[in-house]
């Protein structure tokens, strides 16, 4: 309670006219983080559900934890040469490599969020709590920190704040950050050297997807892909850890099971189509394996389901998810340049989602208008 007294004591300095009025949003963000504010209802319903966006976001972050923790371990496990490490040593090694990326992502992103909330005179939105965790998880561990900082800043400003902040953006901010790195510094997010920390001597090792693209086969077994002991972006390798997160998201209803299911269905369907064509070795890779290698599962569970950028109607969600799965596998198989298709598939469908919703809502409008004609 003493903390509360202290907060109350310093609060006036951050109010309008106070010494630190320019930091009002920042103060407010920290205060409401520490304490659910004592605001009472003034209009409308007198009682309210105790769920708020902070809760929604923290569940998302919790759901990311298995994949993140495993990802840290895997960074150690995949490290370049050196003595044999225990599981804990591997984790600690990875933790020290990944933590700076997380810190950079949060510090850069939150600073911009705080500043723009201050300008708009709004409360700071919680959206970046999730975005800030997603960005480190979808880049290779070798990504330079300045690049992470630049990409985060670009994504928060151009993809989010320009559109009006959390809830208004069209494209998934974490994916935009990754796309920024991908298009601006292609070499540092693809190829064979980026998947390893401290890779000064040019240790190389291709991901399963690029091996597929080259030869139609991969050295990593299905079991490796399920557990996640393969090279890849920090959080995307372990299918099991991702599914643990998916379970939490579905059980709490925080993310849409419709989208997850339909992304997997779409990917499987497209994979089967290519199996049937079977023009080259890559196309003959069993369809279901697409779902567990690369960023497919991570994208389906954590990226495609972002409620702001996904389709918003239930019917729309089925279509949107299915198309992501289809496109991701399509891009993987027919695009010669880059072996991964999930990022582009989701970003593309983010752009299409409002159109899908438009037609779903339009059907509702037509039902209503038909009634008018019947009545006449």
């Amino acid at each position: 309670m003493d903390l509360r007294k202290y907060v109350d004591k310093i609060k006036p300095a951050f109010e309008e006219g106070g010494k630190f009025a320019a930091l009002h949003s920042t103060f407010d963000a920290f205060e409401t983080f520490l304490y659910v504010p004592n605001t009472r209802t003034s209009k409308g319903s007198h009682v309210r559900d105790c769920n708020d966006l902070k809760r929604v976001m923290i569940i998302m972050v919790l759901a990311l934890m298995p994949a993140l923790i495993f990802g840290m371990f895997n960074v150690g496990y995949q490290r370049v040469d050196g003595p044999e490490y225990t599981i804990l040593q591997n984790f600690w090694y990875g933790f020290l490599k990944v933590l700076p990326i997380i810190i950079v992502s949060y510090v850069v992103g939150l600073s911009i969020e705080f500043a723009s909330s201050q300008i708009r005179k709004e409360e700071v939105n919680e959206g970046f709590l999730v975005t800030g965790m997603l960005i480190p998880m979808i880049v290779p561990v070798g990504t330079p920190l300045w690049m992470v900082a630049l990409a985060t800043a670009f994504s928060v400003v151009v993809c989010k704040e320009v559109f009006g902040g959390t809830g208004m953006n069209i494209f998934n901010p974490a994916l935009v950050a990754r796309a920024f790195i991908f298009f601006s510094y292609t070499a540092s997010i693809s190829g064979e050297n980026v998947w390893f920390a401290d890779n000064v001597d040019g240790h190389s090792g291709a991901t399963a997807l690029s091996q597929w693209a080259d030869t139609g086969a991969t050295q990593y077994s299905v079991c490796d892909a399920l557990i996640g002991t393969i090279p890849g972006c920090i959080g995307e390798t372990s299918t099991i850890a991702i599914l643990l997160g998916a379970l939490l998201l579905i059980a709490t209803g925080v993310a849409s099971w419709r989208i997850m299911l339909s992304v997997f269905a779409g990917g499987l369907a497209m994979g089967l189509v290519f199996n049937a064509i079977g023009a080259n070795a890559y196309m003959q890779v069993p369809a279901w394996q697409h779902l567990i290698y690369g960023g497919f599962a991570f994208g389906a569970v954590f990226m495609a389901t972002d409620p702001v950028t996904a389709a918003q109607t239930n019917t729309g969600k089925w279509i949107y998810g299915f198309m992501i799965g289809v496109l991701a596998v399509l891009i993987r198989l027919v695009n010669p340049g880059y072996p991964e298709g999930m990022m582009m598939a989701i970003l593309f469908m983010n752009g299409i989602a409002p159109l899908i919703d438009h037609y779903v809502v339009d059907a509702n409008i037509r039902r209503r208008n038909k009634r008018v004609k019947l009545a006449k």
Partner: protein
Amino acid sequence: MSKIIKLKKGLDLRLVGEAEKTLDTLAMSEYYAVYPTDFEGVTPKLLVKVGDKVKAGTPLFFNKYKQEVLFSSPVSGEVSAINRGEKRKVLSVVVKADAVQEYENFEIKPLEKCSSEDVKSVLLSAGLWPMIIQRPYGIIADPADTPKAIFVSGFDSAPLAPDMNFVLKDQLDNLRKGMDVMAKLTAGKVHLSLNAEALGELNKVENAEKHLFQGPHPAGNVGVQIHHIDPISKGEMVWTVGVQDLAIIGRLFNTGKVDMTKIVALTGGEAEKPRYVQVIAGAPVADVVGAQKAEVRIINGNVLTGKTVAYDGYVGFYNNQITMISDNSEYEMLGWAKPVRSKRFSVSKSYFSWLCPKKRYNLDTHLNGGPRAFVVTGLYEQYLPMDIYPLYLLKAILAEDIDKMENLGIYEVVEEDLALCEFVDPSKSEMQEIVRRGINLMIKEN
């Protein structure tokens, strides 16, 4: 009897403080009041001044923009105060009640000989016309119109709502008369919706087209019922009337007197003794609730749609319920991160309310967060049992896009229908206010 209409969407919010089924009769209070602000869209013009003697049924004011619509005194006595707010807006007209009540006498012809004009003129002059509400818009009906049909909801499904079968058990004759009166006003049918699980006394009202509804709140909302019985399309109009108001209308036609006696349920976790109380409309809230308590919010109506009323305020014109809940709101350290918040309720599975579906909550007025942009999707639809996309409708209203609002169903909803969406909203938006803004915009544009 038609088949049961089963609704799945919605929520029965279980609160403590349900009214015990005992009836207290409130003795005559000293003052009674009418709030012009109870009537949506009405600009009052006064017909009385302080010191005037009035009887029960004497008009106190009329609507400036619909002059034949009168609002009358619920009791006889002397006008003791006319309270005004900013810009001299009339907030309340207070009448000091006589010890012995006198009533205006209204000449009532036998109903079979009445035309719809006769019926309207009685209702208008007695000041009971404002009980008839028009849809779309949820405003007082225009006497010049003839509605497609008239709808009465025979049950209230809101949190802690009064059991209408208990409230109206001695009013069946008045209800039957009221139904006959309504039948005069429309060329179509008069519909009465009942709770399929508790038909009760109201099932004995024969002279109406009955419909059975089953499911959680807002199954009792007349708007939801209309949507499932005969939805309102563009260019159509129906009227609605509250079931207890219908009994008061019936009483007028049975006795020739405006007798605003009604039963309200005193409910809520902070109510001393939750029970049913017989009052005259406009009675002082203090006389109903008993001693004043600090940090308690008194609500004219239910927790979802009611209006806050001061301890020295009065029972509202349309209200059948008074709810008292705690208004003491504290900071809660890291509340949003706690795995369990046993005193609070959430429909979200990220809390554990769903593990105890029978538990009753003593909710306070805590907003439980701060206002945000709409983020979550697929949630609101689960609490509006209509073929309407609530989020798209709300966004159309915010964008003031008249065409879209019309296309997305603004004619079919009023505030109360979106109240549950507002309750569950993690973005803490003011949906009921947005809906009213949209409706007012439609009225202005048409």
